[in-house]
């Protein structure tokens, strides 16, 4: 019988508890154990960024994060961005700039961008590029994504005023 470990944490603002398998990564734990399917599996080695989530407001790669290390921490996934049909300015901007094609990288891109804009609502283009440097997109060529994040930053600044 595999010994499971109880992990309690906050997921998208809600107190959450689930059992983690020994050595289970945070990505599998969120998807299989908790049912949040927004972070994606891409590479399993921290290279592609499709699994990016925020832990205590910082971007982390869920596939190379031990699930148990999430205990007592605040986790946010792309599921936190929209409120029903009301989308986050980042999501609207991705739509307007055609920054998603196949869409597989998009949840990770959104969370990497969200972490940047919360820390720095007025980023330079180079800072946006660095913020998504760990997120691979094979469709868009990145320029629409960078444009979308820069455009969304204006909304973030307006909402901060």
């Amino acid at each position, binding site marked *: 019988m595999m010994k499971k470990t109880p992990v309690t944490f906050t997921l998208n603002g809600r107190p959450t508890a689930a059992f983690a398998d*020994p*050595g289970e990564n945070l990505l599998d734990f969120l998807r299989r154990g908790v049912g949040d399917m927004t972070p994606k599996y891409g590479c*399993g080695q*921290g290279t592609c960024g499709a699994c990016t989530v925020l832990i205590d407001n910082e971007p*982390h790669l869920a596939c*190379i994060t031990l699930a148990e290390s999430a205990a007592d921490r605040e986790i946010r996934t792309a599921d936190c961005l929209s409120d029903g049909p009301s989308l986050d300015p980042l999501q609207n901007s991705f739509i307007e700039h055609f920054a998603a094609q196949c869409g597989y990288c998009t949840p990770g891109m959104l969370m*990497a961008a969200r972490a940047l804009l919360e820390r720095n609502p007025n980023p330079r283009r180079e800072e946006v590029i660095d913020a998504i440097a760990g997120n691979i997109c094979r469709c868009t060529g990145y320029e629409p994504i960078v444009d979308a994040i820069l455009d969304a930053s204006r909304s973030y600044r307006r909402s901060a005023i």
Partner: protein
Amino acid sequence: MLEVRTYPTLAEAAENIDPGSVFMSGGTLVMIRVNYGAHGLKAIIRTTDSTLRRIDDEAGRITLGAFATMSDILAHRDLDFLGPAAMAVGGPGVRNAATVGGNLFAPHPYGDFTVALLALDARVHLSDGSAVPIEDFLRNRSGLVESVSFQRPFGDLFRFRKIGRIKPKGASVMSIAAHLGNSPGYLSNARVAYGAMGSAPMRVRAVERALEGAALNRHGIASAIESATEGLEPPTDELASSWYRREVAPVHLRRLLLGEDR
């Protein structure tokens, strides 16, 4: 069957390391192994000891706790000189997890931050209270690391650059760090280190010897550039062949030493 054992202190974790177990800090290396089957791995050993994340500066002697992350270093206002080396370690998601201690164990072609520590002549402090020069530590890479320490470099005499073929982030074709000493007019006791040019980061003694007493200009470093790959057999991997690494090493060494952008 794999198990995870968590201890409150590094000392307790060290007591419970046994064959088939591995110590985990940020997880960026260990979790890849777990995700790809964890063959032969019986236990992950962890500690929740938050003191391992400390960064201290006592009279110019800087100590980085083994759990200090690359992001911690980038956020520290007095560690600007280490910024390029910390930035060389992955994107933000990796830098928020990757630790100083873990980087010491990173396999080829990773370990860029360790290259900087080599050029700084760091000492590695282990959980049993002993301390060893980093060059000695890298020969075996065994033991639990508590911290690393080194003397703060003067002015702009510490330099680092990473050479990659994938922009803005990718594994190293090579990385180079140099500490150029502080004698006016000529170089003395320069320390030069390479990453991705062997099985582990290394000091480049032939270059260091050639730099002794040399002036820091194109003519003065010519002999060091000729020695750039003396005695080295760089590995061939998906990023670059051994031949390519040997060809580009003198070019990038010259650029680093002379502060050239290209």
